[in-house]
């Protein structure tokens, strides 16, 4: 079992233990792609909020490759994949009562998304 050492402490405290993975994994999407968030309701851990499920957005940034929280939380492996900043309009998320110019960005994993063609 690993042991925390004195030199590890500032790294841990300052980075919060990033789950970025140094692996070449092909991205499924490119910046500018229109994506549809999957309507999934797993009983286990996920970083996909309910309010985004079934909604359409646009990939704005490719953050790189990270551990997939849904499998990692269940001791089922890292399943490394790309994470994207996806932009949604407030109206897509909250309906016609939302302000027209408001937008929201969510960091979403490859496995949460499908391409809108």
């Amino acid at each position: 079992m690993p042991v925390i050492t004195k030199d590890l402490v500032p790294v841990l405290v300052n980075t919060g233990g990033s789950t970025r993975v140094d692996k070449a994994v092909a991205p499924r999407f490119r910046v500018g792609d229109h994506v549809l968030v999957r309507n999934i309701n797993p009983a286990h851990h996920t970083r996909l909020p309910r309010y985004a499920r079934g909604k359409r957005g646009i990939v704005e940034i490719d953050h790189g490759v990270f551990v997939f929280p849904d499998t990692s939380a269940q001791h089922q492996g890292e399943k490394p994949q790309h994470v994207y900043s996806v932009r949604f309009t407030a109206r897509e998320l909250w309906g016609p009562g939302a302000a027209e110019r408001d937008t929201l960005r969510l960091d979403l994993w490859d496995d949460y998304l499908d391409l809108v063609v």
Partner: protein
Amino acid sequence: MNGVHDLGGMHGFGPINPEPNEPVFHHEWERRVFGVMMAAFGGGHYNVDQFRHAIERMGATEYLSESYYEHWLASMETLLVENGAIGKDELAARQAKLAGKAG
């Protein structure tokens, strides 16, 4: 999991009142929870996703009524018992001792 932690878009929780000059810790026990959490994480007892999931597995009432570092403590208790690092009885005995209820 569709738990009570997934608060985005929910109404009725009242205003958010940011505290001016908020301290890093409001109580000494929070500082200790932070340290123990980092030590157990760095020691390989859990990863960040297991840690978050264990917070989400808290009872809904406890989740909504307890503070940020109480969530951390609840998660550590769950995970350290589950991986066998501490016994459930051992934890209960320690809690009782600290509460001044038993030896």
